[in-house]
């Protein structure tokens, strides 16, 4: 199970900040997250960037147990 990090509005939409999700690839893992959290999360995910281990990743990137998938909605720092 890869680690899932849900930040800002993605955390609110999912109802939690950390979770675990199975691959085998990034797009499959994210589809499983959408199934689990529902429509509001799907809406946030659609406008978010997704990083794997701190870097942008392709949809078909393999996801393993030691990976961290971070869902990053539009930012508002500063």
């Amino acid at each position, binding site marked *: 199970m890869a680690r899932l*990090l849900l*930040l*800002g*509005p993605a*955390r*609110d939409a999912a109802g939690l900040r950390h979770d675990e999700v199975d691959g085998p690839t990034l797009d499959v893992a994210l589809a499983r997250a959408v199934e689990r959290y529902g429509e509001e999360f799907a809406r946030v995910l659609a*406008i*978010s*960037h997704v*990083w794997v281990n*701190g870097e942008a990743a392709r949809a078909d990137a393999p996801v393993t147990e030691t990976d961290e998938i*971070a869902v*990053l*909605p*539009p*930012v*508002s*720092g*500063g």
Partner: protein
Amino acid sequence: MSPATLALDELLTWATRPDCGAVVTFSGVVRDSSSAHGNVHALEYDTSEELAEQRLHLIVDEAWRRWPDLGAVAVHHRTGLVALSEATVVVVVASPHRDEAFAAAKYCIDTLKVSVPMWKREHFLGGSAWSSEAVPLGDVVER
């Protein structure tokens, strides 16, 4: 990245050095209103400190690449709850000459706003909501 109050005077002392004639600072301060809400009394920042710090380091590195003469560059951002009139972020740049000090400080804060994974929640009279001023996460260095 830290939940502690930002001490600009200490950063200024740190940045001031005999080969730099110009020091520019930027402080971002909690305002009493935003484009969406009046009566804002605090901001709350959600982030992954690890991911945000990576990006802050990239920004400082890129500032030094663009303006190699810089003597000192620091960017500090608060996490958690920040009260009205307190600083949420400070940028300090020291440089031999003032043009690059202004340019580098402005680059740092402008780039931070669009490329650092931080999410601002506005606490106002009667509730709270994520900032409506969010922008899609961008890169530090344009590709």
